[in-house]
Every structure is written in C-alpha cells, then in structure tokens.
C-alpha cells in the first residue's frame, strides 16, 4: 500500500510543478505585451521609417495575449487534474483498506455485506481513471498549443530584426523589443519543456 500511496503523492507533486512552471510564464508574457505596446508608440513616432514594424507590434501583442490565455488554460486543467488525482488517491486508499478487511476478516458473520461498498469504490476508481486520462489529454493539447504559439513568436522575432534594420534612428529602440520577444520565447520554451518532463512523469505514473 505504501508504494502505491507514495506513487500518488509523486503524481500530485508533478502536477503542482506544471502549474508552478507555467505561472512564471504569465509575468514574462505580460512583460512582452507591455513591450509590444511600447513598440507601437515608437513605430508611430518613427513615421514612415516605422511602418514595417507597426503590424509586427500587433502580432507581438496578440502572441503575448495568447500566451497568457494559454497559461490560464493550463493552470485550470492542472488544477482539475490535481483534484481528480486526490479523489483517485482517496478511492485507492479506501479500496486497499476495504480489501484488507475482506482478506483478514473472512470469518466475520457479515463479511459479504462489504461487497456493494467494494464494487462502488471500484466503479469510482474506473471513472476517475477515465476522467484523469481525459484531463491529461487536454493538458497535453494546451501545452502543444503554447508550443506552437512560441514557434510563431520566434518567427515574428526574426522578421522584427529584419524590419528594424530599416527603422533608421529608431532601430535600437525597436531592436530592444525584438530582443525581448526573442528572450521571452526562449524562456517560455524552457518552461514548456520542463512542463513536458513533469507531464511525462505523471503519464508514466498513471500507467503504473
């Protein structure tokens, strides 16, 4: 029983870690959004020289908004998964204790009256496993979406560098925005990569 219980604890820790990894993304994405708004102002000041950069600032802002939305989705799903995992743990604990009664008290007059309770807990465990898999798939999907957003963000960062070269005296200011987008993308990708490690750990334990 203790190995199984420990196992469930690890799953809970891994799920909490995903939420924690992604939480920091929120502030990074918020920073990028502010930089994009700032870039809008700079490109407006740059007049014709900043024309090429203006639509890019819209993309950057959109990507940062999508990243923040993605973090919310991932956090909500991780929380749902944690709740399911706790219910699963409770059901497993109850099942093991019920089973211990069934195994060690075979001589008791009313031992058979345990059967409906055991069947109910077994049914609940099956239901929870199904819900857990469903939620785990959702979480995987949200991480993949976030990953795709970051690919787009990298592409936008590369285009930004080319466009800023035409922005003359505003070149340096706009380059800072492109750099901050690039840095944010790298950081967020790292967080997503770490989240995948936690997620794989949860998946491996769920196959236990």
């Amino acid at each position, binding site marked *: 029983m203790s190995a199984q219980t420990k196992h469930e604890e690890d799953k809970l820790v891994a799920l909490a870690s995903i939420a924690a990894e992604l939480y920091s993304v929120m502030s990074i994405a918020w920073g990028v959004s502010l930089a994009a708004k700032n870039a809008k102002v700079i490109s407006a000041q740059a007049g014709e020289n900043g024309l090429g950069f203006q639509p890019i600032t819209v993309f950057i802002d959109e990507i940062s908004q999508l990243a923040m939305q993605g973090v919310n989705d991932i956090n909500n799903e991780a929380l749902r998964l944690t709740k399911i995992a706790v219910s699963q743990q409770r*059901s497993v604990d109850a099942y093991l*204790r019920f089973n211990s*009664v069934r195994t060690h008290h075979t001589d*008791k007059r*009313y*031992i058979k*009256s*345990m059967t*409906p309770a055991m069947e109910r807990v077994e049914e609940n465990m099956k239901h929870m496993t199904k819900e857990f898999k469903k939620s785990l798939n959702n979480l995987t999907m949200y991480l993949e979406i976030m990953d795709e957003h970051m690919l787009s963000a990298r592409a936008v960062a590369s285009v930004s560098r080319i466009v800023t070269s035409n922005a003359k005296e505003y070149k340096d200011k706009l380059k800072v925005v492109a750099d901050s987008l690039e840095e944010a993308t790298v950081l967020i990708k790292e967080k997503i990569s770490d989240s995948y490690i936690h997620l794989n750990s949860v998946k491996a334990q769920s196959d236990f």
Partner: protein
Amino acid sequence: MKATILYEQGHQWIMYGRDVEKPEKIIDTNQYMMVSGNRALLMDPGGIEVFAPMLGAILHHAKVDQITDLFASHQDPDIISSLGLWDQALPHATLHAPWLWEGFLRHFGMENIQYDAIPDEGSSISIGSVDIQFIPAHYLHASGNYHVYDPKAKILMSGDVGAALEPIDAPLFVDSFDEHIPKMKMFHQRWMPSNRAKNDWIKRVRQLDIEYMAPQHGRIFKGDDVKRFLDWFEGLEVGVAIK
C-alpha cells in the same frame, strides 16, 4: 480489535478497542456501536489508522448497510479522521456532530454522508426502537462537544470525560476507583479547560440514570463508580496549563 458487548436487552451496545495491532505511537481509543433492529449508530468511529480493524470487528455484529448513523463528539483526529473512508463505505449514512465543527469536519472528506448539525442545547434521535440523546458537553474538551445517552440501557458515552491514558492491555472496567485516579488526573486537568463548563456538565449528568459511563480512552465506569467519578471530577481543578 477487541469487541465487548456492554448491553444486550432488546438492543445492543458494543465497545471496540484495545487493538494490539495498532501502530505504537497512536493513542488507543474506544469506539462504540449501538444496534437496534436494522439500524446501528457508530460513535466516535476513530482515526484513519483504526478504520480497517474497526470495520472488520463491526462486521461480526452488523452488516455494512445497517450502519445508518455516525456520531462524532467533537472534531479531533482520533475521533473521526476516518470520516473520508466511512464516506465511501456508507454513502447513505448520517453523521450527527456539533454544528460548530461542520466546516472543519468536512476537511476529512465528506461527499456522500449527510451532516446532522447538533444544536448547542443538544438533541435526540431514534435508532430503531431506541431514543438516543445528545447531551451538551461543551469545552470538555472541545468548544463544541456532546456525549451520547441511552436512557433504556442507562449508558452515557462520555467522550473524553473519564478518559485515562493506559497500556493497551488495561482492563475494560475500572476495578478500583482510587487506584484509577492517577491514570486520569493529568488528562482531565490539562485537556479540560474550564471549571465552569465542567461543573455545568456535572450538574446536567447527575440528573441522568447511569449504569455505565463509557469514555473514549481507558476504562469504563460501572455502577457506583459513576457517582465516584462525578464527585472526584467536581473537586478537581482543571485548565492547569494557565499558571
């Protein structure tokens, strides 16, 4: 888990405890069950660690679906931390417990069992053919606290009042009151916080006809030892941690 029938005349009272297989550092507890007809009331069913031996012992006297009612005198883990497990075993049961502790007790996990919040003045219920009274025992030791009185069997399940800290092989009944005093003195002086609450409870309990006073730890008081306990408790200064 040892089971002892305390009363058997139309309905039954059974005491469960003295579990030699319990983990060493866990305090030993007495659990009680009253069975009347096709219903049973399980009182202070115990902590998570005693759930399996407790359920195993119960199945000698009642079917699982016969346990329709649970009672928790207060919120302590040794009283009711097994609630989350009973919740899965007895989804249609009702838990009778202090109104004050509902939000706290639900932390043990209660998704199915119904909560019957006992009001401050106490209440009564019928289990089969037996009328059971929930007697207020506030601040003895919890701020919302009740005992169970069965006027037919003349049994008072007295929670932590009358409790003693003893080895696992201690006898079930007090055999010499004077020798028993040292085993319960510190417990009452330290765990019971209020002399006023104590005296209020004694006044109320003196009006009851009691043959057995059955605490949640230690030995059961029988016959004249019940009165001896009340007299001794009345003279005892409690709440001694405040110098």
